[in-house]
């Protein structure tokens, strides 16, 4: 110090880099010794060697920190970015880079507020992953055969659980001993949960069908192991249904959010785990009583019903009463019905015959007769006409005949000679004839007797006319 004050300048001693670096290290380490520093964790880096490098900072400055691999186990919290912590350790320098830093061998969360803030952050993260979802929760078996309890093998917690189990329903219990606070807590609890799940049912170590993770009450730091992500993940991954019972009713740790059921206390966990045997025995007895009562009632009900039914069953006579009455009524009604039917039929017959009355026929006949007479009256003049015309024609023809006939010739002095019926026109024939007859104007004279046909003069025979020609 004197050197600087007395004569700054040329006579100042000259250090090598290592000398000054060593001097600074000595000053820093000697001056500060073991100290505590409060700040927020900044960047965290774990080297492959296992050593931890991180910053502790406030709003203006940064302090580089290191925790060697061997020291990490002693930290009660792992540095996590953003976490408000108080670190404890020694200040030192790193001459190779002209830097100073703090070697931290203990880290504590700075106050409850900071702890809770970190817990909130973890909760949000796991919740976002869906680990708290209700549908992930497995039902707690109603009556587990084997219960695995993860807790400290000493102390009130395991005693309380075993007591309550014995009171309710004695079961097989496997205790997996773990540290329930401190830095060994989280890895041991996580290992126990995984270990129980790894057991095979029916193996040398039987696999429990229910797990209870329990710890008594304590400070937030005491319970902190159950807030570790490692524990929460192991509980979430457990295939065996898990009841968490950490701390008192008011304490809620991260494992409570992922467990299948949260119990407020270890004793309550035992109550959730098994039903009360005596109550169940009573229940079974009650069921038996209900069954026999139901059976009795069933028979009674059927007997009553049978009695009621047989009571309302009608007598055979009563059954016949009505049909018999109906038959009688029918019997009465039958002749009446027959008469009515006949009446109805004759009525319609009368209606029909009414249409064929003689008067009507007479009218028809009269009308027909009148028609006939009218027509007959018209016919008479016609017939007369036809008759007159025919007789005129006849007279004309007669006149024509007499004019043209041979008799007129007879008037004029001609005669007709006959032999029998034959007209004789040749003299030779007349000579041969046995007898002849001559017709004159006024009659016939036989040649010989010649008087026979005289009365028949004027009578003409049309069939004789042909012989004239």
């Amino acid at each position, binding site marked *: 110090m004197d050197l600087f004050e007395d004569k700054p300048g040329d006579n100042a001693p000259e250090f090598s880099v290592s000398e000054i670096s060593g001097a600074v290290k000595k000053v820093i380490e000697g001056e500060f010794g073991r100290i505590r520093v409060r700040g927020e964790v900044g960047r965290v880096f774990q080297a492959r060697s296992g050593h931890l490098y991180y910053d502790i900072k406030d709003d203006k400055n940064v302090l580089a920190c290191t925790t060697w691999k061997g020291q990490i186990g002693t930290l009660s919290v792992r540095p996590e970015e953003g976490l408000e912590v108080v670190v404890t350790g020694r200040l030192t320098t790193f001459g190779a880079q002209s830097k100073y830093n703090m070697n931290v061998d203990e880290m504590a969360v700075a106050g409850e507020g900071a702890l809770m803030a970190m817990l909130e952050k973890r909760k949000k993260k796991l919740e976002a992953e869906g680990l708290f979802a209700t549908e992930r929760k497995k039902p707690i*078996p*109603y*009556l587990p055969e084997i219960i695995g309890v993860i807790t400290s*093998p*000493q*102390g009130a917690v*395991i*005693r309380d659980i*075993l007591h309550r*189990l*014995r009171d309710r*329903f*004695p*079961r*097989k*219990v*496997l*205790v*997996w*001993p773990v540290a329930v606070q401190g830095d060994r807590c989280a890895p*041991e609890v996580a*290992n126990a949960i995984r*270990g129980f799940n790894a*057991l095979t049912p029916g193996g*040398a*170590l039987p696999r429990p069908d229910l797990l209870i993770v329990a710890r008594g009450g304590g400070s937030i730091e005491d319970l902190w192991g159950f807030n570790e992500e490692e524990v929460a993940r192991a509980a979430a991954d457990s295939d065996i249904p898990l009841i968490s019972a950490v701390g008192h009713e008011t304490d809620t740790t991260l494992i409570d959010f992922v467990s299948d059921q949260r119990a407020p206390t270890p004793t309550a966990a035992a109550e959730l785990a098994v039903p009360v*045997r005596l109550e*169940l*025995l009573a*229940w*079974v007895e009650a*069921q*038996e009583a*209900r*069954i026999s009562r*139901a*059976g009795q*009632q*069933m028979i009674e*009900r*059927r007997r009553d019903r049978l009695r009621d039914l047989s009571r309302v069953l009608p007598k055979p006579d009563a059954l016949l009463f009505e049909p018999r009455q109906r038959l009688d009524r029918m019997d009465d009604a039958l002749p009446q019905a027959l008469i009515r039917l006949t009446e109805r039929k004759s009525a319609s017959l009368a209606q029909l015959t009414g249409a064929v009355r003689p008067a009507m026929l007479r009218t028809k006949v009269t009308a027909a007769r009148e028609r006939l007479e009218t027509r007959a009256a018209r016919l008479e003049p016609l017939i007369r006409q036809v008759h007159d015309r025919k007789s005129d024609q006849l007279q004309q023809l007669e006149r024509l005949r007499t004019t043209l006939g041979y008799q007129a010739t007879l008037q004029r002095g001609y005669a007709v000679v006959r032999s029998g019926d034959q007209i004789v026109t040749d003299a030779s024939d007349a000579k041969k004839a046995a007898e002849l007859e001559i017709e004159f104007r006024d009659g016939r004279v036989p040649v010989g007797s010649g008087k026979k046909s005289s009365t028949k003069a004027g009578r003409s025979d049309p069939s004789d006319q042909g012989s004239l020609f």
Partner: protein
Amino acid sequence: MSDTPVSEMSFEDAMRALEDVVNRLEAGDVPLEDSIKLYERGAELKAHCQKKLAEAEEKVAQITLDKDGQPTGTAPVHPQ
């Protein structure tokens, strides 16, 4: 009614089945023949439940671990 033989039922299943039998018998609308069968099943279920309740044995053991935290066996527990 499930097909699981009563002897293989868990206590809870047997309990539920027993309750079902009782409810059906109490409802009284089961045909007589069926109700006799139900009655018999109820008796069987009851016996099974009682057997399960009788199997209430306390047995507590603590798991022993090796240095890697792996289970090696069990030891009796005597919590004070």
